[in-house]
């Protein structure tokens, strides 16, 4: 299973964290600090796996962002690389050529997408199209609710004028 997902920028800033195993706040900070130290310093030609505390961290760099996932010793590292890529492609499709800034300003969207991809540290959907469809449906649900809310407040505003 995937124990956590981390997105770290090249400067070591955290862009997204998702924890599927229990880690206290203190441990989380420590994990992030330790791992960014290890991963950001690795050369470009080295393999994408780092052994760490009896587990393995699979990471891949896309532009200025490092996508890291921590898995158990017996898990398939190569597949996790595919999962990372899968996630990136979905983000790319959603934001339209995604960049780090998209993930900073719309971080909650990135989380929503991740939640449609992984639950309990396991993969739930192998179709990019399905994920995109589900996210779009939920986004429009939010939109509708908003329009309703604003039209109601307009009505109230009109009425109280």
């Amino acid at each position, binding site marked *: 299973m995937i124990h956590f997902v981390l997105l770290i920028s090249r400067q070591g800033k*955290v*862009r*997204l*964290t*998702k*924890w*599927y195993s*229990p*880690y*206290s*706040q203190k441990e989380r*900070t420590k994990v992030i600090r330790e791992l960014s130290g290890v991963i950001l310093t690795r*050369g470009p*030609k*080295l*393999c*994408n*796996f*780092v*052994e760490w505390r009896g587990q393995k961290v699979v990471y891949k760099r896309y532009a200025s962002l490092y996508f890291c996932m921590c898995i158990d010793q017996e898990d*398939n*590292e*190569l*597949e996790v*690389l*595919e*999962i990372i890529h*899968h996630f990136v492609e979905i983000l790319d499709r959603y934001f339209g050529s995604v960049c780090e800034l998209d993930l*900073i*300003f*719309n*971080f*909650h969207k990135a*989380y*929503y997408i991740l*939640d449609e991809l992984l*639950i*309990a540290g*396991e*993969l*739930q*959907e*192998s*179709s*990019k*199209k*399905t994920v995109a469809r*589900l996210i779009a*449906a*939920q*986004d429009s*649900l*939010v*939109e509708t*609710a*908003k329009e309703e*809310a*604003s039209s109601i407040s307009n009505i109230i505003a009109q009425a109280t004028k």
Partner: protein
Amino acid sequence: MADLIINPFSSGTRLRDMIRSIRACKTAAEERAVVRKECAAIRAAISENDHDYRHRNLAKLMFIHMLGYPTHFGQMECLKAIASAGFPEKRIGYLGLMLLLDERQEVLMLVTNSLKQDLNHSNQYIVGIALCALGNICSAEMARDLAPEVERLLQSRDPNIRKKAALCSVRIIKKVPDLAENFMSPAAVLLKEKHHGALISGVQLCTELCKVSEEALDYLRKKCTEGVVKVLKDVVNSPYQPEYDIAGITDPFLHIRLLRLLRVLGQGDADASDYMNDILAQVATKTETNKNAGNAILYECVETIMSIEDNSGLRVLAINILGRFLSNRDNNIRYVALNMLMRAIAVDAQAVQRHRATILECVKDTDASIRKRALELVYLLVNDSNVKSLTKELIDYLEVSDQDFKGDLSAKICSIVEKFSLEKIWYIDQMLKVLSEAGNFVKDDVWHALIVVISNASDLHGYTVRSLYRAFQTSGEQESLVRVTVWCIGEYGEMLVNNMGMLNKEEPITVTESDAVDVLETAMRRHTSDITTRAMTLIALLKLSSRFPSCSQRVNDIIVEHKGNFVLELQQRSIEFNKIIERHQNIRSTLLESMPVLDETTYNGRKAGSLATTVQASTGSSISLPNGDVKPTAVPLVDLLDLSSDDTPAPSSSGVDPLQDLLGVDLTSTPSVSGLEGSSKAPVDSLLDLLSIGTPSVQNDSSKLDILSASNRSTQSANSLDMLSSLSSSLATPVSAPASSAPMMDLLDGLSPIVPKTDTVTFTPPGLSETNGSVYPSITAFKSSSLKMEFSFSKQPGNPQTTLIHATFSNMSSNNYTNFIFQAAVPKFVQLHLDPASSNSLPANGKGSITQNFKVTNTQQGQKNLAMRVRIAYKVNNQDMLEQGQINNFPPGL
């Protein structure tokens, strides 16, 4: 940011603006200020119970949380958002719940009720986000409370709900394995799904069920093996499906998960394994390997082939795939190949050996992850036939390897060399190479072990000390090499100078006495030398002062320099050693005899952790005890064995200062004190005291000076140091201390044999009649429900005090014993020498025995009977066992 409405009348900023202003901060202090301001605004909004901006405030809090600031005050807001009716609030509320809380927080329990309602909601998306939150953070209690809802949702009409419910169930049964049986049959149904997401999740649920419950495994194996194989066949042979296609393969994720489930089903079941052979062969041969996705499938397939019941054809196929992986240029593929080969070793070591050369190359890779894997693999590959070549390769590589890899590498090499030490010379050679290259990285027990081995290889002493001398010239910066060199020069310095014990292959070197002292002087002056190295050097210098009389003055000069050392230990030793050199020429040579051979079995036993760890404690004490303060303490050795000194004769209680440990002086028999005049008694005694020369075995009644009381008097009355300087002149009478060995026990961290020495000269009391040749009956010395020990006795002619005991151990229980170690302790009037035991494993039910010979010398024969305490340690099923007892039934007169 459409979902965060801009309200021009709001006092707070928009999320986007907050992020922007945080990003604009140039210093951490600025950032903190912005965050503090935002947090204050959010707190105010929370206390006003502001509904309109709850949504936005939560989003801000999450961002602040990601930056690492505390956000606990927002936790309740999440719960409120979840409890509200609209989808947007719930969506952000659940996100906040997953982000800001973790499963160990009490607050989480408050959300159970909302979750339950949402799981029963009519809106599929609300059910979806509730399932997602439950799957990501549920605790054991929540799992129990909400399992029925999740179980019901496994049969929902919407496949997207089914898949989420299935993964949620994975978490639930991980938290509460008892619930597994409820999920068995719905999970089996999921395997028939057409929707890929639901199918993938169903497969994962089945895999997890098999892991947590034996019952589920049986059930699924019977019911689903065929089905899973068929699903895999379908997906392998499916035509192009753009929605699931990755690099020309339809849904590799599904492939991998199906293979993983097959692995669990096939493990330990020949029929199931047999059933999946064909499809595994097809996957292994037909999968496209030019993209990562294909390799990921192959990797999983190989692992499944290795794990299921034996099929030699498939295994050959699998190992060949790994061989191809190993020669791949992609580091990732090489890494997983090494990883997999480690597991393959257990299955087919021969096949893995074929790739040895390639694996060895991987040890030298630039990538630390690959190096580490490869090194562990090489370690597993070493056997008797290839140990020499592999060790050579590794040691050669040690020269050029990265600094941070040297520690790992040298540890592995040492471990290999120790495990496969073919002959002592090879062992010593390899270890010297390792120490010369990476002496700063090896652990203490490595060089301890080396010293023990050197000490035992008497024919190699000369060779070793000369090799060390050469190595020191080139690699004098390696701490542990320096220590071993220093120790060996101290012990075998004369062999260095006169080329004694030359081996054929060796080139003669010319080393003068002063060259040898040069080495020690260098070691002493190295600024990197730590206290252990310096202390060892001091002792070596002292020893050389007696072996090389011509250098005595120079040695003394070096020692004198350290009289003012800031380290108390070194200062104290320097002063003492200086006195020994200057004023006690007559006892010096005997004081500084070579160490006796260190007992390998004791050392190994101790290393294995079967001995009490008091060694550590005694090391510590030897460093800090002040001079001259001789307390009547028991000898540490005896302490170690937990021997009470009640029945020891008077002189022994004079105590042996830890200094003894350092000096390694342990005169076990008294000097021929009978020749001393009464006036010199006290001075001699205080000298003994200062040097902490224990005199535990006084046997000559006629010369039974009251050493104990004298010593007590002297220590009470005056500082021994003063005494020493004042008494030295009166010490004209030669004190011919009989030769005694000098175990440098504590300095070497407890390397010395635990038994007292036997090479001491023992005096036969004139009054005692000889009891040569008497026959003594055998006894059962020790018997417990699990172990019996029998002693038979014999005497050496001409040595009536010494008894040879032949001990036979037999195992009365039904378990085999391993790591069997026998230890004995005797009162101080007895000396004991243990020979190595015949074996260290003892078969069950008395079907074999261990024998061990030892020699006891009763210095008070005829007055006191032998007594002995024994301690027997062994392992049963890897558990440490310890038996102890006291033997009082020795035949009288021994």
